[in-house]
């Protein structure tokens, strides 16, 4: 009996040891232990303090998810660098695909770079014909529609070697539908207010400090226009363009409004807030700039942010809301300028400043932007799904290394461990103003996570702006009209 008890005790001890070893060395547990990022401490100083404190082996980590010698096929669509992108983004893009090929040489990959404004349409059309790619990276607003329709595979961070704690809660919210996750965040970004310090100085404003509130921004824009004869703020109000809500929604939220209740702590996405008094005040601010003060570009109604770049680098536009990559883009434009234009462009670059987006009576807010990567279900994929190849790419793309590098100029790593990499340290050391845009992340609010969000953000909100700014409707009527459309939409009409 004594020997039987001893044997059982030995077996039990061995089992406990083995279990402990398995847990200690599993990728999931290792990730959780490594995620020592405290979001409560988030600040430019904290971000700098953790940068460069950890090393990661992407190929090694992903080999635990899918072996590196795996043979398969892969198709992927995403929005990569375009003509308006800085050169460095193109370089890093090429490096990514080279590294992917080196890590998984036997996965035959067809990668398509599709324009931002076209990707959703193209993906929808492809799904209708069961000709979708295996993997798609969509902007943060885009995935929920397809999750709701049942096109996407359920996928958790653990499925690709990471943990939920490795991603922003807001980012995970954007890939969650009815309690399940259907994607992994690749990058998250928030924009900032960029201004030309020389223009500020020439207009009698403090060159080193941005407008603190949206009301201040309206006043600054007017002062710049009145004194210098150039537009102050680069308003963007084009219809059917994603740029428009990314710039108007921070203003709407700051005043206390919203499309729905997405800015509240526990949104139910059923309460329409486009025509609340707070929302109308936000719309009135845009009206004041465009109609009353005429202090923004007249072309705002047909402009996207791309069209603001030329007047900004020419020193003819004082303030814009843009991504961190705007600085790199301005440097590129300056390098390509010639003659007298070159001197002007260099002066603009030297005088570029980044600051927090102004706050309003309710809050300081910015769109919690970024992208998520999704895996499409087999029956909708052209030629069928290769789940292992897809998971390998998702692991690779959302790794600390590549989620940092691919976000080099324009964004931030979706994988929070990316903030601990040497590349994050290099970015902070070499990219001006990155600490500013990074510090806006906690103010980020994602768009409503409902399938109707693209229609609300890309059509109803810009329509509301255009109706008010052209005088087709009064501010009140435009807001009420937009709210009515959202209510009809949510009501199934």
């Amino acid at each position, binding site marked *: 009996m004594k020997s039987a008890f001893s044997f059982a005790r030995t077996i039990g001890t061995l089992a406990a040891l083995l279990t402990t070893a398995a847990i200690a060395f599993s990728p999931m547990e290792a990730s959780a232990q490594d995620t020592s990022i405290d979001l409560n401490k988030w600040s430019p100083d904290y971000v700098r303090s953790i940068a460069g404190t950890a090393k990661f082996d992407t190929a090694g980590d992903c080999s635990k998810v899918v072996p590196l010698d795996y043979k398969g096929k892969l198709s992927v669509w995403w929005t990569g660098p375009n003509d308006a992108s800085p050169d460095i983004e193109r370089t890093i893009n090429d490096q990514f695909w080279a590294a992917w090929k080196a890590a998984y040489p036997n996965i035959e990959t067809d990668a398509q770079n599709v324009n931002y404004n076209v990707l959703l349409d193209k993906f929808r059309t492809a799904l209708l014909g069961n000709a979708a790619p295996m993997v798609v990276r969509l902007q943060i607003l885009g995935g929920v529609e397809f999750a709701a329709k049942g096109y996407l595979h359920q996928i958790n961070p653990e499925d690709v070697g990471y943990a939920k704690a490795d991603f922003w809660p807001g980012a995970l919210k954007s890939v969650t539908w009815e309690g399940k996750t259907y994607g992994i965040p690749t990058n998250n970004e928030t924009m900032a207010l960029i201004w030309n310090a020389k223009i500020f100085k020439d207009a009698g404003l403090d060159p080193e400090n941005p407008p603190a509130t949206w009301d201040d921004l309206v006043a600054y824009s007017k002062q710049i226009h009145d004194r210098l004869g150039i537009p102050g703020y680069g308003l963007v109000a084009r*219809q*059917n363009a994603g740029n428009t809500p990314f710039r108007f929604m921070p203003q709407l939220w700051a005043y206390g409004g919203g499309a729905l209740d997405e800015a509240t702590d526990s949104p139910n996405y059923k309460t329409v807030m486009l025509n609340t008094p707070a929302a109308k005040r936000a719309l009135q601010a845009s009206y004041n700039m465009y109609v009353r003060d005429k202090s923004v*570009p007249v*072309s*705002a109604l*047909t402009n996207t942010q791309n069209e603001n770049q*030329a007047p900004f680098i020419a020193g003819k536009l004082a303030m814009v809301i843009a991504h961190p990559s705007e600085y790199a883009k301005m440097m590129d434009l300056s390098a390509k300028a010639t003659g007298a234009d070159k001197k002007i462009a260099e002066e603009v670059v030297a005088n570029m400043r980044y600051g927090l987006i102004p706050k309003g009576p309710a809050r300081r807010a910015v769109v919690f932007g970024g992208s998520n990567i999704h895996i499409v279900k087999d029956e909708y994929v052209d030629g069928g799904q290769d789940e292992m190849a897809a998971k390998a790419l998702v692991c690779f793309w959302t790794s600390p290394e590549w989620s940092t590098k691919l976000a080099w100029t324009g964004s931030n790593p979706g994988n929070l461990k990316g903030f601990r990499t040497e590349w994050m340290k290099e970015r902070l050391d070499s990219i001006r103003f990155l600490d500013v845009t990074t510090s806006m992340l906690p103010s980020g609010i994602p768009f409503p996570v409902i399938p109707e969000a693209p229609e609300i953000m*890309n*059509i109803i909100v810009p329509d509301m702006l255009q109706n008010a*700014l052209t005088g087709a409707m009064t501010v009140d009527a435009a807001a009420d009209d937009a709210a009515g459309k959202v209510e009809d939409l949510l009501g199934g009409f």
Partner: protein
Amino acid sequence: MGNSSRKDGLLAQIIAHRVDYLYVLPALIVMLVVIAYPIYYTVELSFYKTPANLQMKDKIFIGLDNYVTVLTSRSFHKVTVNTVIWTVASTIVAFLLGLGAALSLNREFQGRGFLRALLLIPYVVSAVSASLIWQWIYHSDFGVIGALAVELGLSEEPINFIDNIHTALASLIVVNIWREFSFAMIMLMAGLQTVPDSLLRAAQVDGANAWNRFWHVTAPHLKGVSMVTVLLLMVANFNSFIIPWIMTGGGPAGASDIWITQIYELAFGRQRWGTASAYSVILFVVMMALGYFYVKALTRGDDRRAE
């Protein structure tokens, strides 16, 4: 008995010409796949509702509700008026400009070949490139036209073309005419070759002035080709998507929205595939009507010759 003999006759004819049918069969199959099936599917889809959270296979049958929605929507009247203005104005002015250019180039003069090539440029430039270039020419803050107007003292500030709800559509029509008039010019130049020179000389000898020669000799000979040209222009303009979409997106505030841009927005912006299909069917019916008149105009000469 009569019906039976007619059927036998038809069958006999088909069998007799079976090789001819084999020759056209590949084209017929392509047409069935690329034209007939999409038309059928669009008509079918027009009777369904497609909510954003449902796949297409789960669409909901709603009968004629989509047609009612389209025809009674607040925007339909405005978009229809825009479409009629866009189509009629573009067609008439492009035709008249093309006619003027064709008449001018019909005479021999130094540099005629060069001028003809120059006038063809708008037609061969891609619509996308043309739209983007004109967008900058019209730019409300930094456009060339606005800058020249200020420079010449014609205006105190740059002119607002496409960011103004009152001038956006007209501005786009100008671009459309610029692109299209050379097509009318080519068609009418071909038509002018059918005008007998002897008749024109005889009319001149009889004392007819230039206008009388044009009205009584040239114009009657251009009737057929003019009708075909006008119809082709109308069909093209009804379906013209690129210029309004790229330059203004249908804005500002819907001022330059036409049927085709509305359909695109409904389908790809709002995912109202059923409503967009109903709209497309309405457009299709209009196109078929125009197409009927086009074929009639095209074959009218054949019928006359057969008589």
